[in-house]
């Protein structure tokens, strides 16, 4: 029981990082019907900016995290402006290819600047081991969970209870009608990228510290996993992305714990295939017919 509970906790921590990444996918999909494949690289950029702020500028964690989020958010908005906005009236395939191109471009820029070697990300505070009943964890894992929780609650509030959130939902529902109602569509879309990217950056910083590894290719797998989580929860659905991330993290960790580590990625993508086959709208996705 102790081990099982321990593994559930591990899965929850991994899952909360997936959830933060999944939110960016799902929000962008919501407003643009675009799978932003450069999203994993935004996560990587966040981790690198966080690493530099902590190790070179020597900022404390509470200052480094928001600055890393801001920097990655600016990169995300720039990507939207440069690679997606000019293609907004083109076919969805063109934008998708542009997204894949952006992903490769950002990865190579990072390789060029930082080199290919894995860097260590020492947390700017003492990490101590905690014993909670039968469970053993540490301050960093709990902080990761805490950061993820705060971000998700904040996002939920923003989308549901503010005027900006209302504008985002309106654009997601019908871009042209939203424009007719006086909503600045371009600004709203940029804002979506801003928020989604900053969440991915937060995940990048936390995971970089948690696993003590920052590398230019680190965004590829988590990016795909975040996408799987978003589809699992119902793409375009914000609570779905949170749920999808947590479920995916738990499934993977339990797979490694009970079967073997070879199964980690296989489990994630088997889930994707099963969801696409049997419940394409995802766990929480509404059964909406394609608009004609």
């Amino acid at each position, binding site marked *: 029981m102790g081990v099982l509970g321990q593994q559930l906790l591990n899965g929850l921590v991994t899952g909360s990082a997936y959830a933060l990444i999944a939110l960016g996918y799902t929000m962008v999909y919501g407003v643009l019907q675009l799978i932003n494949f450069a999203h994993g690289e935004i996560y990587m950029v966040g981790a690198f900016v966080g690493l530099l702020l902590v190790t070179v500028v020597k900022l404390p964690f509470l200052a480094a995290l928001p600055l890393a989020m801001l920097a990655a958010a600016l990169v995300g908005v720039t990507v939207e402006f440069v690679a997606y906005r000019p293609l907004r009236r083109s076919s969805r395939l063109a934008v998708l290819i542009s997204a894949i191109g952006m992903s490769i471009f950002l990865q190579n820029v990072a390789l060029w600047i930082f080199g290919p070697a894995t860097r*260590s990300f020492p947390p700017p505070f003492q990490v101590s081991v905690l014993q909670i009943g039968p469970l*053993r964890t540490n301050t960093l894992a709990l902080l990761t969970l805490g950061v993820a929780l705060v971000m998700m609650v904040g996002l939920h509030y923003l989308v549901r209870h503010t005027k900006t959130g209302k504008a985002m939902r309106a654009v997601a529902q019908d871009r042209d009608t939203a424009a007719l109602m006086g909503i600045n569509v371009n600004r709203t879309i940029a804002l979506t990228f801003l928020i989604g990217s900053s969440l991915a950056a937060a995940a990048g910083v936390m995971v970089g510290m948690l696993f003590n590894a920052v590398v230019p290719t680190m965004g590829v797998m988590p990016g795909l996993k975040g996408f799987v989580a978003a589809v699992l929860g119902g793409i375009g659905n914000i609570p779905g992305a949170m749920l999808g991330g947590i479920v995916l993290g738990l499934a993977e960790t339990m797979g490694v714990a009970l079967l073997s580590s070879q199964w*980690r990625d296989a489990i994630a993508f088997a889930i994707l295939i099963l969801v696409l086959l049997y419940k394409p709208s995802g766990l929480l996705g509404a059964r909406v017919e394609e608009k004609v």
Partner: protein
Amino acid sequence: MSKVVVRSLRARVGLVAALAALLVLTAGAGVFAQQTVVIGTLGPLTGDYASYGVSVANGVELAVNEANASGQYNYVFRVQKEDTRGDSVQAVNAINKLIELDRVTAIVGAVLSGETMTAGPIAQDEGVPFITPSATAPAVSEIGDYEFRNVITDDKQSAQMIDYVVNTLGLQRIAVLYTNNDYGVALRQGVEAGVRAAGAQLVAVESFLDGDSDFTAQLTNIAAANPEALYIAGYYTEAAQIARQAQRIGLNVRIMGADGFDSPLLVELGGDAVEGALFTSGFDSETDDPAARAFIEAYEAAYGVKPDMFAANAYDSARIIIQAINQVGPNRAAVRDAIAATTDFPGVTGPTTFLENGDADKPLLIFEVQNGRFVRVR
């Protein structure tokens, strides 16, 4: 048809090459023009395992530069380095280029076991002798008679380490976490054999994949088995991360590994989490042996860092090849026979003899990380 018309591109290239060769020969007129012999080397010069590949390339380069500067050899040697990025497919391209394009006489490499298993058979088929200074998977010696290995195999390394922690340190409950590739599996097999031989207990066996960064699930299972020592069968990047994550879940046990630990980056990435870690290696950079000291100083002067085992094995391998070429000339088959006949070569890693299967017979050392430095304990 008396007029000579150079038609095909190949003929033109041949003509240009002949003219160029003539030019070189006349330029060196008066002195005896020495023939240049190319020695190839391949390994990960970039990527996660770059630390190993760069050390090997440096070791080979230093041996060749020293040979050329000494004036004692009948040939001028040139090094051709190729980057595999640690990728088994890229290694095939690299070795094909060395053999077909650079016309190497012999090769030092490849560096990782996986890439040696894909690149090695090509050199075997082409009849190009190669000495790997670091590929330690047992299967490497099955590639064929053109394969030589100047490093101690994985299963021997891990079995001797288990023998040391059980019989010298008195630890009984052993866990193993291995990377699921040739290297990790061979080390795990050695651990299993060592545990059986020493009469200890193997309490947990877990695995991970190349490039994984989250090891908490495996470590949690291992912690539940309550081990006294954890053998990490993998390379320094993952070993450092695993040690850190083990510390964070409260798993404070003796960490052990093989020569994959032997990089300054182990301490740089692992910090205090790798303090006290033990690993096997074939080279001591703090040795008092005069020949080895000379090598260490020359290496430091050339590259600004201390040589590791990879550099030392590569240096010895290149010198064995240079000696063989000098004896029998740049004929690949004759060089193979000369390498095979190597007996008690005075290497910086100890006296080296090649056994029937191509494996080197030489001493194995054990190191401990003490205050961030590698200190020899056996």
